[in-house]
């Protein structure tokens, strides 16, 4: 029951979000969902109490463009997703190198259900 969802590709993500910034959209947060072979990233926005979302699906292991250059406040949450899911963001303004939310001795990417290697194998099967 999500309304106002715009599906975009990873390449056009930055442009879509850069277009929203001057229109007065407030960036709420970024949600990452483990979709098996892909990462599902949902960017939530608010304008006058109305929610809208931008959804990007990227294959696991691919690099996602960071939007922290557009919305400065996105840097923290991108670091969090990088920690908990192991998604790599390209162009992060502040990069904690996977040590933002997790301690040095903590396991890497604890929120992942299907590890990247398995996801790649599954994607290979699908292609065959």
């Amino acid at each position, binding site marked *: *029951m*999500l309304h106002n969802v715009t599906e975009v590709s990873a390449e056009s993500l930055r442009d879509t979000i850069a277009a929203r910034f001057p229109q*007065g959209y*407030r*960036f*709420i*947060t970024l*949600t990452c*969902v*483990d979709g098996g072979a892909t990462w599902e990233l*949902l960017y*939530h926005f608010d304008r006058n*109490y109305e*929610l809208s*979302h931008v959804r990007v699906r990227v294959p696991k292991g691919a690099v996602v463009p960071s939007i922290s250059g557009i*919305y*400065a*406040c996105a*840097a*923290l*949450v991108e670091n969090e997703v990088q920690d*908990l899911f192991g998604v790599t963001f390209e162009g992060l303004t*502040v990069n*904690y190198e996977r*040590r*933002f*939310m*997790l*301690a040095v001795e*903590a396991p890497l990417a*604890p*929120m992942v259900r299907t590890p990247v290697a398995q996801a790649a194998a599954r994607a290979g099967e699908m292609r065959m």
Partner: protein
Amino acid sequence: MNNATTSTPRRTVIPFGPQHPVLPEPLHLRLVLEDEKVVEAQPAVGYIHRGIEKLAEVKDFQQNVFLLEHVCGICSFIHALAYCQGIEELMGVEVPARARYLRVVWSELNRLHSHLLWLGLLADAFGFESLFMQIWRARERVLDLEEQTAGARIMLSTCTIGGVRRDLSAEQVGQVLRGLDELEREFDMFVPVVIKDATVKERLCGVGVLTQRQAQELGAVGPVARASGIARDLRVTGYAAYGELGVNPVIETDGDCYARTLVRVRELYQSLLLLRKALRHMPDSPIAVAVKGKPEGEVVMRVEQPRGEVMYYLKANGTATLERVRVRTPTFANLPALLAILPGCELADVPVITLSIDPCVSCTER
């Protein structure tokens, strides 16, 4: 002498927290200083990451109500409320009127208790010990009211999917109303000190200014945004019984620590007003409806916490466990604002400025 003024001053790095006398929360800031001026601040969290989002994928959707309540030790009820409203929207459950009013009652008691806690800590941070104790005595009354009505001081555990788990008798309603009158008398005694005292103003006025534009761009929420002139209060959207009760956001325009204090102080009185209205106009109806079936679909639910907007993203797949539970707490949204106002301030003001966003780190890290 000339040399010293032209060369760049030496930079010092000071770790602020995670153990700091004024902050009970383990927030760590890496402060880069030039003399006594902060030029850069970098946060480090992760001292109390508990993995609640992960655990919420293991527990079933009914148990999650109690789990998610433990995200925050201050606004516990409101976390459960956000989650329950999300599941109710997924399952198409209509909550009875009395339950909606009771939800407002406990939400506002949570807000009173949270703002009093913060106000006390603020008094402590600028070294006004006796004021801190006066405020916390008033807070104790709120905790008593919570225990009287919900059966616990902090973890109310009264919200459930489809309504609430406890009803208030007419006698209890009277007790709470009398308690609120007493509270108001206590407020009237310490509030003038907080907002008029010259020493207090000296520490707060003009310190840590967040402009309206910054607040908008950095996505600040709650009292931090409202103190910078942004009328953003999700109670306006009318969830629970707020629609019937009517809420006007409390706004200040200065954007400094004093404005943030004023917003919270005025919200104390606003909460009293809402509580009285909700208790006096509580309709008669069952307090919960039976919920059958399993949730399915995606939903985003937002409600207003004492610290600002909390966002829940829930993804369910028709089984008892949820596929994803995402919590974006208000402090997480206010951290960028804090990092924006720290550069340029004096080291001695850092504790008060940090406290002025009301950081709740256990919320932030979940």
